């Protein structure tokens, strides 16, 4: 746990491209908002491993968004039900329903459809937002944080020792 946290801090403070961390957060949201064993998540995992993005940010973000999805499940179900029962889309859904490939994705489940639609809608905004926030953090907050007494204490702690050790790793992102 300490190592993962240390690694995240390292990622956040490293020279890793903020776009790569932001992308990982966006994919984490997509994974977290869908059921864990959803076939879509398999495709997301492939993309996360294949595209150069920060794995620690993805894993931590997925935990966060999975928890958030638990709270938002009623909203997802309502969105999903509204989409799946929308008359203009009926032809599309019927065609997909009769295709094995799409049926495997469980698109006709209201929670899956709602979570997926929500994640797709907020994918780009989250990417841009997290990108901007990381930049702001590095430019303004990091220097100030390092000077605080609390940070001085942390830097003298065992946890910081681990963090320092982790800093020697490649960082997950290229």
């Amino acid at each position: 746990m300490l190592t993962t946290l240390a690694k995240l801090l390292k990622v956040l403070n490293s020279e890793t491209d903020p776009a790569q961390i932001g992308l990982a957060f966006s994919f984490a949201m997509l994974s977290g908002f869908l059921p864990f064993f959803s076939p879509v998540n398999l495709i997301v995992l492939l993309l996360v491993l294949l595209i150069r993005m920060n794995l620690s940010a993805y894993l931590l973000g997925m935990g966060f968004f999975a928890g958030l999805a638990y709270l938002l499940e009623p909203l997802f179900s309502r969105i999903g039900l509204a989409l799946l029962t929308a008359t203009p889309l009926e032809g599309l859904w019927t065609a997909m329903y009769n295709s094995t490939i799409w049926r495997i994705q469980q698109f006709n489940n209201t929670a899956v459809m709602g979570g997926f639609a929500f994640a797709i809608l907020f994918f780009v905004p989250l990417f841009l937002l997290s990108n901007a926030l990381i930049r702001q953090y590095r430019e303004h907050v990091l220097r100030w944080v390092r000077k605080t007494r609390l940070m001085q204490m942390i830097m003298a702690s065992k946890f910081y020792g681990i963090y320092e050790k982790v800093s020697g790793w490649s960082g997950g992102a290229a």
Partner: protein
Amino acid sequence: MKKWIRWQGLIAFVMVVCSVVVLWLFFLDGLVKRMVEQVGTSLAGAEVDLAAADVKLFLLGITLNGLQVTNPEEPALNSLECARIAFSLDSLNLLRGKVIVNEMAAEGMRFGTKRARPGRVPKPPEKKPEEKSSSLSLSSSMPDAKKILETEQLDSPKLIEAAGADLAKGQDQWQERMNELPDRAAIDAYQARIQKIKQAKKSGIAGLAGELGEVRALTRDLEQDLDRLKKSRAAFSADLSSAGKLLADMQEAPMKDVRRLRDKYGISSSGLQNMSQTLFGDSIGSWVRTSLLWYNRLQPIFRSAAAPKGDKQVVKPLRGSGVNVRFKESRPLPDFLISRTAVSAELEAGMLVGTIRDITPEQQVLGSPLTFSFSGEKLKAAQAMEISGALNHVRPSKAVDTAQYALRGYRVKDLSLSGSKDLPISLQEGKLDLNLLARKTEQALTGKLVVKVMDARLSAGSGNASGPLASAIKTSLSKVSQFTLTADLSGTPENYEVKISSDLDRVLKDSVGRVVQEQGDRLEKELKAAVLAKTDKQLAGLQKNYNGLLSMNGRFDDVQNQLNGLIKEATASSGAGKLKLRR
């Protein structure tokens, strides 16, 4: 582009997926076993155990060995045990989220087997509804009259007490009114006035003329008193008549109590009309209840909770979050279907083999009802056995379930016909033919069971009942060699009635009727003595009050006679009847 792609990630992905698949395969058998036990337990309402599950990926075949379903009412027994269940899944449809089994085999089914340890019952079965008490008690002897009176409230003592208070009050009131009637002093005063008139008459015409006014006044006073007396007497007569009626009612009240208690604790004639209902009603009612209990438990297998939403259908999945929306399929198939199940079951009578077709909770999607058909094979104790039926929920609003069961030449031994504690009855041996037809819709439940028993040897066991009634039944049953029992089921699934009739009724009525009459008479005699002992004193008091009232009648006579005499005398004294006085 190269900057954004890391090909090592592909290797990592393959490794992750392979690890998950290997782990999944390693634990798959255990997962299936646990799933069968969990889903089975929730369906059956009692512990379901599975010895082993074997999943074969090639052709996706599953074999379940040693399935045991605990009987929720008797956790030490299995309601069902199945040695082996094997089936293969349609893998393409499984990818589409549909569990389709074309062929299933359930072998070595047995019922009511003993368990190694009592099964867990997460939700104890609902308490059986209170049985309707039969009108015929088979207890060892008639209840004791004294014991009955210890628990029963009698109406007569309260009524007699109230009547006694009424009569006493009436007596007091009449006593007061009697005091208002002319008494001895008033009569003497009238007498004096008459004497005075007589004296005046002797003194000549002048004296008579002077007293004429007095005569008129006297006769008016006498007539007024007489009128008042007559009115009082009329009212008294009415009150006396009411008191007499009240007394008669009160004398009858203890007998009303006696008859009420006899009807309650004695054996009614309606009980004798249908003794087979009394003797076999509980057992057959219990069979019906158990059948309905299992029918309700198995409902999820052939009834879905699908709720239509416009042209689409919204189906709540058994597990997981959200709901599944179903669209029109080019080749509609339900989410769960077992097209054909071959079943072999080991019964006491022999082997029963048959098929169940189209097990699905979505018959409306499949368009076919669930049907079942079994027949006996190599039967040891019967000539033939046939079970068939259909659970038709293709149109859920007009669902109809039917079942037929026919058994021919079944050699029976020690079959309990009545589990009554008072008088358990069993068919020690005999040959029976049985026909059962049952039909259930949403609103109605009907059925008819006809059992013909030949070469019968009936035995009434040693229950609590040991009196003459039980002896009469035992003797009658021991002489019966063949009989027919008919049970008619009617009503709604929630509120049904089982009417049982049998030619045993006539036999039992003849032999038991005399005993019942004797016992009833004896109970009535005892009750009468006990009730009268409680009310005798009260009745005597009531009679005394009435007699007191009755005695007042004489007083009215006396006063009336005296007044009439005075009027006559006054008339005579007024002179040769010249004065016409009313009487």
